[in-house]
């Protein structure tokens, strides 16, 4: 079944328009002939292919074609054509073809028309996708695509604000509906356990009795009602009239808006027949029917009138579907077809009038029949069909509608009232049809039109002719023309429940006919009464009473309020742009997160702590004071804060040394030194005095805020301390460290287990870590190249200015003597220390594997040696003597470390597998020659490079400042 030839044809029908869309997109921008040709051929081929299916369809076969797509999600690409789908496919392709012909003439030669045809074909494909989907998710997929293409088509003239807004509104409303539909279909799939349409359609009882029926129904109906512009979502359709008329004719009368009713009909067997269905669908349909018809009367714009008329007719179909009776369904499906024919032709006629006369305003248009009699005749036929005049197709389905309204479907007030409302709406429909005909074509021929109207090119009128003819033929001999198709469609929905019905112009003088007559007379009367009023309307086309309630305005304002003002205030209320609140939140969240498990399960914090040597107590009293002092001074005395930070660092360093971590003590100390120099380098560029903002003032608010922060900080610190305390007093678990201690010497050749961890067991960490250092150095360098100091920091520091002035003032002294004298002695010592520190660095490096030290410590030491020279002699002094290329050091270091790691590959071992042996070099002691040493050399090289690069880049800023200082 899946690969039958007809299945392939189905796929072809679906794909053709999309292919055409792409082709059209690449046509020359303004070539309307070729655009129309491509679109026309595609539509024609699609028609023919669809027609070719009719034999099978009339044999009540269902053609399916399945491509396995995402079986895990139950989502297959299934095409399915039954009678109902066939009917719609014919409508989509057939009217599509006619509209293409029409559009060829309608669109101006200056229009970039290939875009139009591309979108048009895209829409056609999407619409075919909707009707041919055999999988409900796939249906939702194409459903949204129709919204998208509709958006693009409405906004075709996007230079026009109305087109933009209309398109946006259509997209928003139908998009929302589409998402709801999507959710509803997922629910249906959940209920049924399959997304296959066939399966779903056969699970009506299961669905209707399921607890999720109501939510699913509501969601699906939201989709359908928005798409078919049903009250209260009808307002988008009139706005969509800003689209080119072919679009209105195609999408907004014949096809897309029909997707909603298509959906309701498609799911009619599984969703209809319940109270909920009746009341929701019925109310919406009835309201739409009435409101649409009523407002249509008062429209001055031809397309506006037609749009509201469309709304009303869709309401009629919806109302019919709500009844839940098979005959009502027949009527609904029949009316879908009829409405498509007469409304498409009317839109095209309106377009012709607009095209030829230059306006669509009924008040301006008069006596057009004198200018274009054929078009006028055609339009009148279609209007008559719209009004439900006998011998035209509209009459037939309206009669069926009346017949259904009389019957009782669900005993309720709504049900009781439908016949009266139906007549009323029908009367309105007669009235606006009359207005359309009389107001436009009759009366004194207008002379003040923008253009002098005349008949359009024949082929432009041709589609209207075809459709008007169809109205006639169907209206007169329905049983011969439309019944087979209609029955096939109905059968595919109702199956064996398909009712017997007769299609004939004359059923005798029955109640529906009486209703029709009443409606007709009422309509004529209404038009006559309102005529004066309608002609007097000046600028607005507002319908009395309810016209003031503009759905569009409400929607617009709601959108602006919800999606803009409201969103912005919510957004700004629930977020912050400042750093402090963010950090505060982070701390609080972390504290709460850490507290939750403890709160749930409890933790015993009362444990005896072994004491005790008074020295650590004293040390940490100092350390604590330093920390608090640093916190206290950080704002008012930066230097003091930095010094105190250093104090806390030393105490930490001693603590490490004390508790058996010499490597940590080394590194901590070295980092401490470098950090101090670093921050001092930075201090130069900060404002001299901490600037005080008002918000930091001393008021009560500030005090409360400070207290809050102190509490947060205190709680966090206390929490961390408590956890540390608990852990320290627990028996340690069996740890992987045992392994390291055991294997460090025997298998990695190092006695300093920490170092072996760094370069061997966990050498990969180290590789990453030096990369971090390298990256940071690069970033620092890059940032400083673009550094723009604040203007007030640009001057040389105050001290130097005074000292220079002093030197100037003193006889026998030159500017700069002070600093030379100042540094004379220290620089000698610092220079002398240079080689000594280098020796220390080599020492620390060489012994790292067995004793505290290693590449880091050595690298930092080496960097300090360089920094010291910069301090002693200044940047220029050093750089005329030493040429350091930190970037190279870094690159080489990284490569060396990496290559050492990669060398293991040569031996078929994983990255970083180290090799070592004790080599007895001549004269040297037994030297462990571990490849890890090379790795460590890489570490060393990078650390030197990165540290020097960071510090020197920062130091160079002073040169920049002094340069620019000289310029001024």
């Amino acid at each position, binding site marked *: 079944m899946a690969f039958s030839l007809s299945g392939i044809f189905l796929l072809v029908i679906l794909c053709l328009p999309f292919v055409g869309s792409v082709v059209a997109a690449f046509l020359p921008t303004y070539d309307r002939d070729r655009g129309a040709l491509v679109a026309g051929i595609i539509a024609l081929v699609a028609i023919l292919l669809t027609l070719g299916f009719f034999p099978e369809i009339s044999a009540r076969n269902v053609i399916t074609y399945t491509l396995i797509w995402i079986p895990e999600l139950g989502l297959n690409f299934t095409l399915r054509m039954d009678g109902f789908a066939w009917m719609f496919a014919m409508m989509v392709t057939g009217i599509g073809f006619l509209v293409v012909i029409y559009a060829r003439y309608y669109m101006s030669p200056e229009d970039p028309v290939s875009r139009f045809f591309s979108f048009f074909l895209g829409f056609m494909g999407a619409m075919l996708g909707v009707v041919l989907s055999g999988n409900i998710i796939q249906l939702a997929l194409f459903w949204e695509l129709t919204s998208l293409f509709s958006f693009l088509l409405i906004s075709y003239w996007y230079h026009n604000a109305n087109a933009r807004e209309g398109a946006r509104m259509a997209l928003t409303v139908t998009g929302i509906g589409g998402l709801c539909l999507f959710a509803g279909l997922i629910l249906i799939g959940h209920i049924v356990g399959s997304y296959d349409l066939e399966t779903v359609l056969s699970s009506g009882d299961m669905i209707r009795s399921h607890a999720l029926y109501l939510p699913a129904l509501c969601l699906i109906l939201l989709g359908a009602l928005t798409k078919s512009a049903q009250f209260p979502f009808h307002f988008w359709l009139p706005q969509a009239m800003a689209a080119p008329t072919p679009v209105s004719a195609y999408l907004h009368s014949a096809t897309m808006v029909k997707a909603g009713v298509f959906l309701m009909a498609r799911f009619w067997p599984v969703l209809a027949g319940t109270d909920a269905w009746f009341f929701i669908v019925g109310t919406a349909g009835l309201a739409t029917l009435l409101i649409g018809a009523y407002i249509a009367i008062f429209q001055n714009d031809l397309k506006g009138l037609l749009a509201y008329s469309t709304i009303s007719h869709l309401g009629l179909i919806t109302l019919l579907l709500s009844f839940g009776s098979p005959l009502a369904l027949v009527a609904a499906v029949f009316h879908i077809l009829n409405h498509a024919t007469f409304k498409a032709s009317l839109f095209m006629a309106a377009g012709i009038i607009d095209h030829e006369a230059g306006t669509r305003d009924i008040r301006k248009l008069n006596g057009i029949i004198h200018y274009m009699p054929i078009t006028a005749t055609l339009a009148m036929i279609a209007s008559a069909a719209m009004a439900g005049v006998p011998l035209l197709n509209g009459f037939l389905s309206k009669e069926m509608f009346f017949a259904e309204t009389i019957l009782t479907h669900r005993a309720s007030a709504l049900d009781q009232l439908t016949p009266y409302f139906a007549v009323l709406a029908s009367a309105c429909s007669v009235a606006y049809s009359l207005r359309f005909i009389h107001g436009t074509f009759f009366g004194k021929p207008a002379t003040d039109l923008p253009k002098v109207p005349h008949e359009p090119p024949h082929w432009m009128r041709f589609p209207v002719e075809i459709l008007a003819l169809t109205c006639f033929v169907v209206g007169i001999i329905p049983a011969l023309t439309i019944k087979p198709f209609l029955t096939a469609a109905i059968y595919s929905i109702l199956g064996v429940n398909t009712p017997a019905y007769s299609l004939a112009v004359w059923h005798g003088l029955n109640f529906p006919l009486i209703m029709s007559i009443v409606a007709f007379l009422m309509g004529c009367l209404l038009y006559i009464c309102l005529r004066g009023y309608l002609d007097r309307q000046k600028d607005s086309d507002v319908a009395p009473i309810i016209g003031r309630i503009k759905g569009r305005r409400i929607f617009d304002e709601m959108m602006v309020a919800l999606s803009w003002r409201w969103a912005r205030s919510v957004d700004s209320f629930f977020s912050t742009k400042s750093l*402090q609140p963010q*950090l*505060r939140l982070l*701390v609080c969240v972390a504290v709460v997160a850490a507290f939750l498990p403890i709160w749930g399960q409890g933790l015993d914090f009362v444990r005896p702590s072994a*004491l005790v*040597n008074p020295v650590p*107590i004293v040390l940490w009293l100092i350390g604590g004071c330093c*920390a608090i002092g*640093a*916190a206290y001074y950080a*704002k008012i005395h*930066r230097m003091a*804060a*930095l010094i105190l*930070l250093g104090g*806390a*660092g030393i105490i930490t360093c001693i603590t*490490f040394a004390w*508790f*058996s*971590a010499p490597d940590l003590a080394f*590194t901590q100390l070295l*980092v401490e030194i470098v*950090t101090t120099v*670093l921050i001092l380098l*930075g201090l130069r*560029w900060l404002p001299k005095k901490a*600037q005080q903002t*008002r918000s930091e003032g001393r008021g009560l608010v500030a005090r409360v805020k400070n207290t809050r*922060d*102190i509490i*947060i*900080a205190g709680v966090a*610190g206390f929490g961390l301390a408590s956890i*540390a*305390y608990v*852990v*320290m007093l627990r028996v*340690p678990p069996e*740890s992987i*460290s045992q392994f390291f*201690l055991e294997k460090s010497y025997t298998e990695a050749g190092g*006695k300093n287990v920490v170092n072996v961890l*760094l370069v061997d067991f*966990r050498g990969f960490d180290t590789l990453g*870590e030096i990369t*971090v*250092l390298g990256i*940071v*150095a690069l*970033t620092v360098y890059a*940032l400083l190249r*673009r*550094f*723009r*100091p*604040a203007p007030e920091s640009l001057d040389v520091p105050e001290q130097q200015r005074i000292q220079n002035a002093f030197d100037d003032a003193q006889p026998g002294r030159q500017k700069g003597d002070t600093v030379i004298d100042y540094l004379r002695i220290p620089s000698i010592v610092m220079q002398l220390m240079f080689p000594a520190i280098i020796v220390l660095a080599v020492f620390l490096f060489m012994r790292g594997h*067995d004793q505290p030290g290693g590449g*880091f410590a050595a690298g930092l030491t080496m960097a300090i040696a360089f920094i010291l020279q910069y301090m002693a002699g200044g940047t220029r002094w050093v750089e005329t003597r030493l040429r350091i290329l930190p970037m190279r050091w870094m690159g080489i270091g990284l490569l060396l470390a990496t290559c050492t790691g990669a060398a293991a590959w040569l031996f078929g071992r994983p990255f970083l597998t180290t090799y070592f042996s004790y080599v007895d070099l001549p004269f040297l002691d037994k030297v462990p020659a571990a490849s890890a040493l090379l790795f460590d050399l890489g570490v060393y090289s990078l650390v030197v490079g990165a540290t020097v690069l*960071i510090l020197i880049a920062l130091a160079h800023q002073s040169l920049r400042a002094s340069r620019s200082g000289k310029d001024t």
Partner: protein
Amino acid sequence: MEAVIAFAIGILCSSGIWLLLRPRTFEVIIGLSLISYAVNLFMFAMGRLKVGAEPILRSGSIGISWYADPLPQALVLTAIVIGFAMTALFLVVMLASRGFSGTDHVDGKKEED
């Protein structure tokens, strides 16, 4: 002993966080440094405290369990270096920010008078 280290961790952490919540970049950088001390000590403490038992293998028949846990030390070492790098970076960014905004406020706010 443990109580002292716990105290140390707590006080460093509290001071650091308090500074972290201040509006001046310099306060923040000092705060970050203090926090990194606290965290380093915390990590170190997670290996338990031992005196005079450096994880540097000695000859003789000293049992494995005698040594201090080397792993947290290695981790802290890595953390110290990364912390240093980040301090440097933050410093420079804070200078750059001050250069652009003309203020040392973390949000680059000009002082309102």
